[in-house]
């Protein structure tokens, strides 16, 4: 089973991003997804910067995938998506049907977690258009992943979002700017001040959600380390970790040890809990409310 790192969902300063990937290059990861997927206004790094990081990670032996933006609205969004899709060197992850159209007919692209693929018929269609990897939707249950894996077209890999705050929803509206009474187009890039997003608690103090600009993440940290045996039985090829501001390398190391059989899953789970700023959850995987732990 391979270990992947998803794209950074938050807005981090340029220096922090460069430093982060210098460390990632030396980590126990197999695959790294790169790019700004949340907000087209974020500009600490441009596509050329991402391509430079991609080159360095490739030289360090990582497989690199460029992730396309999740919500595309403007012609500018589409121009960037065309550049990503046509980069000619790195594999690309589609995160909406527009990207699927641009990638159709090319070989070896990834149908990302934000392309809604819930059944073998949809997956077979994408495979016929050149997709070679399916990332399960974040709400997928273990039953759904198992049956999709069993029915997958030949040569298709299955990947599961296995650790991190869940990207639950996306809007055209920026909720971080809203908190500070700023207009979206005059936001002052206030999300730079919140490298793990902006905590949203219920009125009785439950850590419910996290605001990340136009994206809303789970307050709990989704983690399937204790489900490793089920993931392996279902022939899941790749598990994805989502970057967080602190201790991502510890999370990666823990997962690597668990996958390699050097750490029992329950111990891995306990370690991951200590590295996380939110409670761990696996509700979606178990067919329950996503915030729950079974």
């Amino acid at each position: 089973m391979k270990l992947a790192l998803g794209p950074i969902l938050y807005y981090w300063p340029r220096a922090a991003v460069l430093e982060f990937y210098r460390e990632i290059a030396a980590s126990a990861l197999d695959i790294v997804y790169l790019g700004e997927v949340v907000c087209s206004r974020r500009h600490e790094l441009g596509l050329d910067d991402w391509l430079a990081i991609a080159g360095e990670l490739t030289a360090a032996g990582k497989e690199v995938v460029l992730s396309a933006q999740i919500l595309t609205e403007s012609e500018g969004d589409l121009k960037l998506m065309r550049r990503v899709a046509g980069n000619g060197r790195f594999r690309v992850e589609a995160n909406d049907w527009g990207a699927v159209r641009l990638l159709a007919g090319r070989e070896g692209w990834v149908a990302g977690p934000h392309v809604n693929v819930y059944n073998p018929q949809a997956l077979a269609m994408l495979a016929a258009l050149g997709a070679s990897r399916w990332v399960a939707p974040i709400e997928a249950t273990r039953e759904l992943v198992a049956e999709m894996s069993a029915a997958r077209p030949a040569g298709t890999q299955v990947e599961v979002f296995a650790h991190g705050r869940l990207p639950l929803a996306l809007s055209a509206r920026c909720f971080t700017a809203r908190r500070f009474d700023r207009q979206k187009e005059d936001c002052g890039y206030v999300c730079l001040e919140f490298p793990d997003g902006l905590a949203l608690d219920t009125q009785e103090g439950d850590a419910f959600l996290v605001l990340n600009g136009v994206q809303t993440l789970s307050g709990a940290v989704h983690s399937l380390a204790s489900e490793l045996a089920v993931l392996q039985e279902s022939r899941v090829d790749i598990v994805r970790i989502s970057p967080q501001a602190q201790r991502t390398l510890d999370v990666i190391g823990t997962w690597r040890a668990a996958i390699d059989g050097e750490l029992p899953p329950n111990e891995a789970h306990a370690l991951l809990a200590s590295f996380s700023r939110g409670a761990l959850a696996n509700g979606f995987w178990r067919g329950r409310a996503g915030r729950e732990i079974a």
Partner: protein
Amino acid sequence: MRGPRARALIQIKEPARGAFLQSPVELVCPAGGLPALKAAVDGGADWVYAGLRDDTNARNFPGLNFDDTALAQGLDYAHRRGRKVVLAINTYPQRANWIRWTAAVDRAVRLGADAIIVADAGLMRYAHLAHPKLELHLSVQGSATSYEAINFFHEQFGVKRAVLPRVLSLAQLELVTRHTPVEMEVFGFGGLCVMVEGRCALSGYACGISPNMAGACSPAHAVRWRETDGGLESRLGGILIDRYAPGERAAYPTVCKGRYAVHSATYHAFEEPASLNALELIPEFGRIGIRAIKIEGRQRSPAYVGQVTRVWREAIDAWKAGEFTPRAQWMAALNRHAEGSQHTLGAFSRPWK
């Protein structure tokens, strides 16, 4: 050529099935049952959209929707009056229940539905191959926000119409419309999703039931209301969504309409509870080349459907006659149905831009 004049020319070539079908902007109204369908037709809807009584549609609520008999009656009622009915089969099937979705498509064809609304690409492929003549509309749950996405569904499956998520501005709608042969349908009135439809798991995260996985957002069985010393509380799946002071008007607890604490302030973190009313934008929709305006609310009463349909019919007809101004009595009638008594132009105007 774009805009109402071009649309009108195209319409003349089609067989006349009723005066309203000459409209360059069609009115698409909801029906959660036969009485609402009749109210929509009587009120002047060009299309009525409906769902079957199961999780194949995104308003899978108890007591709502159509069995075969009611649907056949509804289709007959609409067709006799020259109107069309589109069946929403717009949730995401999985392997274990796939057959229920394909059976729904087959039922739509057998009963004579004029089109189906589909979100899932696998199901759309099935419908396109099994019933090549069946008119396909891309559901708002399909989350297509760009012309690249919409053209994908057109090229692969011959999709004729797409319903756009309620997050695009007028300028973005115009951009999409200019670059696709697919007819554009937009929401004009009713409940408002703050999040991109088909890409929101907030309800599932709170209570385990979500639109994509179960065909429902914030189902009534997961909602609890409780009077406490601190006021009236609303909960979804046990999560405190909001707390109301005495006399304060309470809203149905969807996650995106709640009040929460963020960075030491407690407020509507996503949006104030409000409904969409884009009636004043009818001329803009026409200018851009929007083909159809959709009224939300299959879960609403026949009275709601009838009243809202009548107002929008009058407004569209007034615009067609070249004498459109938003009339006070229209707005007053529509305001009676607003969530939290507030109406907004939503993303069309983007006051938060």
